[in-house]
């Protein structure tokens, strides 16, 4: 069953603006990861945040985790047209597998 749910389902912004995507999950997790998928391709890992971390940065990416609300957010600052893709969160809550949400489809208009 689906563990994570991204919000919004789709987001359209202008180049240079910030994009924020949210993810909610249902059970306690070990960590949460964000992935990016270009149309029709495989997923590429962006960032991993552990359950005892609250915020993490990587370049223009900022991820926060609120375990009390069972939610995470991904912020992409100063977006570029090349950031256009689908973004998925994946939560890991045991030692078997990752559970993905349905993703947020981000469109960055030049």
């Amino acid at each position, binding site marked *: 069953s689906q563990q994570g749910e991204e919000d919004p389902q789709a987001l359209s912004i202008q180049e240079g603006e910030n994009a924020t995507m949210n993810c909610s999950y249902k059970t306690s997790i070990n960590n949460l990861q964000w992935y990016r998928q270009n149309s029709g391709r*495989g997923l590429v890992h962006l960032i991993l945040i552990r359950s005892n971390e609250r915020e993490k940065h990587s370049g223009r990416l900022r991820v926060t985790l609120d375990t009390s609300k069972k939610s995470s957010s991904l912020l992409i600052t100063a977006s570029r047209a090349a950031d256009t893709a689908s973004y998925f969160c994946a939560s890991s809550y045991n030692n078997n*597998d990752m559970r993905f949400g349905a993703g947020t489809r981000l469109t960055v208009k030049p």
Partner: protein
Amino acid sequence: EADIYQTPRYLVIGTGKKITLECSQTMGHDKMYWYQQDPGMELHLIHYSYGVNSTEKGDLSSESTVSRIRTEHFPLTLESARPSHTSQYLCASSAQWNTEAFFGQGTRLTVV
């Protein structure tokens, strides 16, 4: 770029055919996964493996089977393909559970 490869990238076959989707990785990862993804939808885990000779079913019931005879190879087989099997199949691997997973480019399967 990740060293995990899937072949073929695209496949169109007739109903009732047997097919094998190939997945190989050169990173020495013990953990491997197969996900099924319909266009614009979430990924569903259908199979995973702890290592050689280990295979487990995932959340989504699937009529496919997998094998893990070698660390680097995790093929997925459909004995008798049906139109309902039309989807994208993504293979992934990771060094440990709950760590960064590396994905192949996917196989887009169409059963007519």
